[in-house]
């Protein structure tokens, strides 16, 4: 109740020393990354997906906000996907992981998605960002989905994925995604998920700066209209 709405932790994390990680709750991570994505120029619906994905990755023990930031810094130059049965080609350069992920979930029940046949999504940067959407496609279709890239082979669900946090995780990769005829593993629930990793202060600051782009400076008119008329010393 009386919640003030989701907000980036601008005020809140100010006292956090710069040499220490910033610890945010999942809802703060979602709100911060949503606003940062919107501040970076994404449409609201896509920005919502970015916030959700960052929160999902953090819940799995990965550095959701840092992955989001790394993607956002080059998002404008990344290609949108062209879903087609079997292979999503990267004809115009490296592909955007958020938009590939969104399309993957949206097309989960369509011939272009990983249904009866596996698909390959070519040259996706920051491939970890695709995992939340593969997990969503799995929930949506009721089947587990397997993702392979480089030497990784995972069935994403919101469990512990910390072993995927390697230094080359951001580099472009071809992803092979296949539906497996196995029922979904049940979600382990919040009690058994790994701790939410702290965020590097500089990454938090950069995301916060992007988030602040969607705010409006106060004016005398906006201040006067926002509160009560009269005193609070009554």
């Amino acid at each position: 109740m009386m919640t003030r709405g989701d907000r980036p932790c601008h005020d809140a994390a100010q006292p956090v020393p710069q040499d220490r990680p910033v610890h945010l709750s999942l809802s703060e991570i979602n709100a911060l990354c949503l606003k940062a994505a919107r501040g970076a120029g994404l449409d609201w619906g896509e920005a919502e997906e970015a916030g959700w994905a960052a929160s999902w990755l953090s819940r799995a023990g990965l550095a959701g906000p840092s992955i989001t930031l790394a993607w956002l810094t080059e998002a404008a130059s990344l290609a949108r996907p062209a879903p087609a049965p079997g292979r999503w080609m990267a004809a115009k350069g490296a592909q955007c992981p958020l938009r590939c992920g969104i399309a993957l979930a949206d097309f989960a029940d369509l011939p272009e998605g990983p249904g009866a046949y596996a698909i390959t999504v070519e040259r996706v940067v920051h491939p970890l960002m695709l995992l939340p959407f593969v997990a969503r496609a799995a929930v949506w279709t009721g089947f587990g989905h397997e993702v392979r890239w480089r030497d990784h082979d995972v069935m994403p669900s919101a469990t512990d994925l910390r072993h995927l946090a390697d230094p080359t995780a951001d580099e472009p990769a071809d992803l092979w995604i296949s539906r497996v005829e196995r029922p979904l593993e049940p979600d382990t629930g919040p009690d058994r998920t790994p701790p939410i990793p702290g965020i590097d202060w500089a990454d938090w600051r950069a995301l916060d700066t992007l988030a602040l782009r969607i705010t409006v400076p106060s004016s005398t008119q906006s201040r006067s209209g926002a509160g009560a008329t009269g005193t609070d010393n009554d």
Partner: protein
Amino acid sequence: MPQAAAFRRTPTEVMRLARLGCSHPTRLSFLRQLLRRIEAEGWAFDRPLWEIDAQGVGRAIYRMTGPEGSLSLVAFAHDLPAEQRSDRVIATAWDATFTLYDGTPDAADLDRLAANVPLQEAGRVSRRELSLSRANRSVRLFDHVVAKLADGQQPDATMLRETGYLMRTTAVYGAGKFGAADRAMIAGRPALSAPFQAEMLSVWLIRAFTVDLVEHLAQVRGGNQAVRLGADLRRDLGVGNSTGLGMAPFLVRHPVLLNNWMMVREEALALVRAREHADETALAGFRAALAAAVRNASEWQSAHPVQATKLDDLRRGLAKLEAHVAREWPTEVRHPWDGLWTWGQTHLPLEAQEALLAAMLEPHGHLVDGLTQAMQADEDAPFGIDGAMRVADLRAILRTHYDWAIGRDYDRPDQCARFWYISEEKLEPRLGARFEEEGASLELPLDTGRQAAALWRALGDEAGNAPVARFLLAHPEHRLIVRRAQITARYPFAEIRDNLIDVHMLPIDLLRCKLALFGASRFDPRSDRWVRISLFQGAFYPDDMHPGDAS
């Protein structure tokens, strides 16, 4: 419950701002759910720490222990100069600050909390904390009560009744705010699974703290002469809340939750209307609830012109209803409750219709209380978009659920006069005048009607059998409203069916709806976007539970 189907109201009728802005608290409200659970499970209360000095400064702990363990309100009382007292979110100091701790805090926890909780937004709490809040004194009443009790007298009952509380909270944050535990961490615990239970518990314990504080200060001042607050006066005190636009967008951003809250209330009403007969116990309970509503309406004050008119509607409507119930309402016929409800639709203003709803639910706890289990929501699962849906089906959803939106001309200045945005200063939602203020390019997507109309136009160029996934690939700008539309098709009470950027839109209608769901009474707007309310007035205290109080 097929017998109730014929008695359900439609979302088209219910989800209009004019009606939502007449919402009254009911027995399904979140604070009533909390009190019922505390009483049914016999939670134990104690106050393991009270270190408040003669100036009213210090710290205290209020602990409730139930079957799942303990929850402790940690209170910090401050010495606040009058010039710093502001209910606005821009304030940086308060008379008291609080957090709800999951368990019993040790000395290290208390030190950590003492360094952060008084700072509120500028501090950080941890996953062990479930809420963060603050309160300011209702100065005139607070001082009066302390002075009288110190003198060995009881305070003026009229003054107490008029204000209704000693302190008012100015924010109660929960669900992951400022580092607190995420909702997902506690949603599986029965005591906290219903919406806003941690926040409600915090406010209920704050109410006890406010009374303890005035009695403590009276004792310091009056010594042996001082008396405690009389039981009846104490019980009539609630805890106030002062709130602004910040909470308004919540209802728009949580469509599935809104649906579940409204659907449960509507199902409860339908179940009562579907009753074949009215038994004597229910009739007596209803008459008592109606009499209480009349009393409440007579004591409910507001100087705001909109609310004053509505209060007038309410009082006249309730008087008419009382007369009808006493002299004309046939209770021996089949479906008597439905008969009463139908009469009310024709003869009562919206304010009194919604008050009638609350009174009709009141004596039917055995029938409706169980429905509240459906008020929480998994918001994650419905977040995904059904990309395989055909464009023709999406159009049909818009025709069915957004007919109020798609025919409007949003280029007309009166239809798009407002815009919602986040203030840079405090990161708070605010409402601007599009043609008078800067910032419309940074508008928040609360213009749901306008977005639906834009989607409707864009879909006009698409083949009916094309999948929505293909449409969104080319038009990502419509993703947000496609998601909302698909949610609304499955959760029909998810969308407020009014233009939220209209020149005549009243933000206080959104606030009234949400606050009534909490269980707030005495809705008192201080402007068209800022209100005071009271919570827990008339409820029992942690240290005086009696069987039947929370029924």
